[in-house]
């Protein structure tokens, strides 16, 4: 019996244009934390104790010691932690006890990083949000070409896009098609 080998949903896709790079990468583990009803204060305390920061407000990506966190929905947070630890949700379930419910999300998403000075020229043809005006460490859950996407802004030239794993290939095709349109390469 072989040990199973993990695979990225897009096989580690990388493509470079003149001044732009699109790359799939392993983001670490992603966990959803849902706040138990009536336990918001206790949750916040545990969150701060565990991650060293208060739970993030909407549209904010908070830097944690080992990753990032964002508000992903009503009473739900998405935690991105560096490194591989497939049982991290179970560990967080214990840590947060009855104040939150943890769900492993890593495998539900594909992660793409888009870097380069023309990143806005591409994203304005792809995502409806006002990303040029967004501050660094802006994060939002939205749609791109009818597909779900979580967009995170790390700098004026670097964005991370998370999209559901099953439709990741369609997402990648749509994004690279858009980049081709912007960068002038044949599509």
């Amino acid at each position: 019996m072989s040990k199973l080998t993990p695979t990225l949903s897009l096989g580690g896709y990388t493509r470079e244009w003149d001044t732009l790079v699109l790359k799939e990468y392993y983001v670490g583990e992603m966990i959803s934390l849902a706040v138990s009803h009536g336990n918001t204060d206790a949750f916040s305390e545990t969150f701060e104790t565990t991650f060293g920061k208060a739970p993030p407000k909407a549209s904010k990506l908070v830097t944690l010691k080992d990753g990032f966190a964002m508000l992903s929905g009503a009473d739900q947070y998405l935690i991105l932690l560096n490194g591989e630890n497939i049982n991290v949700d179970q560990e967080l379930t214990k840590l947060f006890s009855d104040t939150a419910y943890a769900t492993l999300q890593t495998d539900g998403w594909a992660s793409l990083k888009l870097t380069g000075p023309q990143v806005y020229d591409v994203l304005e043809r792809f995502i409806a949000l006002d990303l040029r005006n967004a501050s660094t460490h802006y994060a939002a859950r939205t749609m791109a070409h009818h597909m779900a996407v979580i967009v995170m802004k790390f700098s004026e030239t670097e964005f991370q896009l998370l999209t559901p794993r099953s439709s990741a290939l369609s997402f990648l095709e749509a994004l690279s098609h858009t980049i081709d349109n912007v960068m002038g390469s044949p599509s």
Partner: protein
Amino acid sequence: MILVDLNKPLNFVFDGKLYQGFEGDTLASALLRAGVKVVGRSFKYHRPRGIMGAAHEETNALVEIHNDGVCEPNRRATTIKLFEGLTAKSQNHLGSVNFDMLAINDILHPFLAAGFYYKTFMWPKAFWEKLYEPIIRRAAGLGSLSHKADPDTYDKGFLHCDILVIGGGPAGLLTALNLGRAGKRVILADEDFVMGGRLLSETYEINSASSVNWAAQTVAELKTLPNVRLMPRTSIYGVYDHGVYGGLETKTDKISERGPRQILWRVYAKHAVLAAGATERPIAFANNDRPGVMLASAIRTYKNRFGIDLQNTALLTNNDNGLMTNAEHIIDTRNNQYIVDVTGRKGVRTVKLNNGETLKAKHIAVSGGWNPNVHLTCHKRGRPIWNEALACFMPDTHTLPQDLSVIGAANGAFSTYGAFIEANAVSVKLGAKAAHLPIAEDAPINITPFWHVKGRKRAWVDFQNDVTAKDIILAHQEGFSSVEHVKRYTTLGMATDQGKTSNVVGLAVLAEATEQTIPQTGTTIFRPPYTPVPIGAFAGAHTGQHFHPTRLTPSHKYASETGAVFVETGNWKRAQWFARAGEKGWRDSVDREVLMTRSSVGICDVTTLGKIDVQGRDAGKFLNKVYVNTFSTLKVGKCRYGLMLREDGIAMDDGTTARLSDTHFVLTTTTAKAGPVFRHLEYVRQCLYPNMDVHLISTTDQWAQFSVAGPNARKLLQKVVDSEFDITNEAFPYMACTEMTVCNGTRARLFRLSFSGELAFEISVPARYGDALVRELMAQGEEFDAIMYGTEALGVMRIEKGHAAGNELNGTTTAAALGLGGFVSKKKDCIGKVLSTREALTGENTLRMVGVIPVNQGDALTNGAHFISQGDAETAPNDQGYMSSVAWSPTLKSYIGLGFLKNGKAREGEVIKAVDFVRSNHVDVKVVSAHFVDPKGERLRV
């Protein structure tokens, strides 16, 4: 100042003939420079037509652009930026543009007045569909299609700004400059490829220098401002709710060019300033559509911007602005002079005046006054109001959206100075400092309205649709006095120009006919798009493979490598069957997959089933509300089948739910209903039971899940499940579930569930291991001849087992109809329970799910057949039910079917007819239990 570079010639072909234009030309200006007078034929009468305008208002010069056998019709020659190699053709003629055989329509014009097709072709009745309509349809329409796929790409995008300035004339430029200097995020959009608007067409001076220089300098400064985005060749075509504006950016007019040809922008603006200028309108007089009759402003544009001096011009004007046109003859209606006829079929030759004088002229410049471009102010139900002094419709500030300001000529400020004053005013209103007012012309327009010359001959009002003043009067005579009715009866103001030059003239003619004022007559409302938007631009990149997203299962790559034939189920691509060498068709593959699974073991990717994590202290109570049966009592480590109802009591979806801990359930849905069920559950959670402690997260993509089914399923799984986990029947019985590890420590979940009716498990691992797990299962399964099976075999086995699926959960069936009435808990309430007990759904004679088999074993069954009792006529009143699912059962060597039959359960053993009304045949079938294979469920419990 001429804006054409005469040192940069560009070759182009029009109607097969090679011409030369220059950088900066439009196709229209290049054709005029080359002396081409006839550029097309009119819509109905096929009269020769020449260029009339110089911009988007052009009604006559509609041409086709060609390349590589592909053609784009109905492009206005005045908006096509000339490029090297352009190939264009005139349109709407049978024969050449100079000899159009359909010009016979012009001779027959007495029979072709407005609405002629409503009044003729009435007899014989049968001829309408077979003869008249096909001929009319063939003759109608402008331009032709290549019937080839569009080779170009299009894109869409989203822009955000504080202020969207629409129009790059003097008002728009100064506004953008003021706001840009103030640090506002500004988008300045103009449909021309050079910013400047009318400044490019006149010989105005601003601050004692050419107005063209002022425009160029302003644009140059705007380019230096990082907060200002200049968008030439971008037409704002629509205004929508919440500050959203539609914009069409043309990147190139070339066909088959790399990159997107056009980009459809959705612009989000906190405020918009409409500075779209005004459009000159014609005056209707006999034969005013002759080639050479042009708008006076267009003649000035061609002279001042393009360097084309159209000699021998007669000017007809009713205002001072028209007098700016160089003309050999001036005919001013204010002096009671006007034109009564024009000769020259393919180019103006003579002009006959009302005083009997006849002038020789090659061109007629017509200025009937200016219409502010108010169209965009109407898109959110704004209504323009009539300004008597300016003789035009202007925006009504009372009906304007609060986030839209109108300035400049679009607001009736026709002078350059007036435009600057309004630009400064709106800039201050929007928080910017006003610029020092430039010194510019401030001439009043001084207009005395003069709309049309009455007479017996035809005077054109709408050139594009061949609508004459007589047509409008006729419409009124026939009872169409409402402007909206006249528009539809005559086609006034329709098609690509949307009445830019014709609407007000048409209204004036109607007002005269009805003896009302123009404001009393009203105006039609303008709707988006302001300018034509190609369908390709609306589609954007969403064509072909990009039309909708495709979802792939974790085993997709492996399935592709092993002969899978895929089927689309929603957005998913699922393996339908796995073809092997030697198999002659899909039935061979499916039969093999069924038989191998029932005799040994088969593996099927069931990742597509919706998986929803339900967590919280009240998760069990929550599930009690959404399912007909009870879940709060389900023990940890167990699964339970559940049926969900809609509020009206009809079955919504079904699936199994596993309890992993006191507060953690994993609910599954059918593939098709994963989204709707999640939406329903969120509605229930947020709206019906907001105080419950329950959370939902979709984990469909998180877990790769495989069904392992067949007598050898356990043996196979025991080879991959880590040794510390006991999955024997005693330790892990039917409907058990657990979290575990496989393949030396990989996290997994195991559920003992069966859709096939065999001993079966569903094993799931995080999706990153999905591909590896299916390969490992198949490798370990070699000793059992394990096979992959697809959705077809899955479907056959579930019909053999009598499990309801989408065909049965079809939006009309209840729990009782599905044979699941016993599942409905009597101890608790649930969504849909009350309405499911309605008499019409529960009576003795209601539909119940049954199985059917053909009386003659060789007979094939067809899905959708209706059940009729033996001896009854095959008519709707005798309908007893219908067949919902059919399969060839390789296990039973017969067709089998599931269906719904009135009082079905009590009719087992009865022979009825399954009537296929589509194919007009029927098969005698015997009503049996829906459970064809292993009705006692012994196989799945071993």
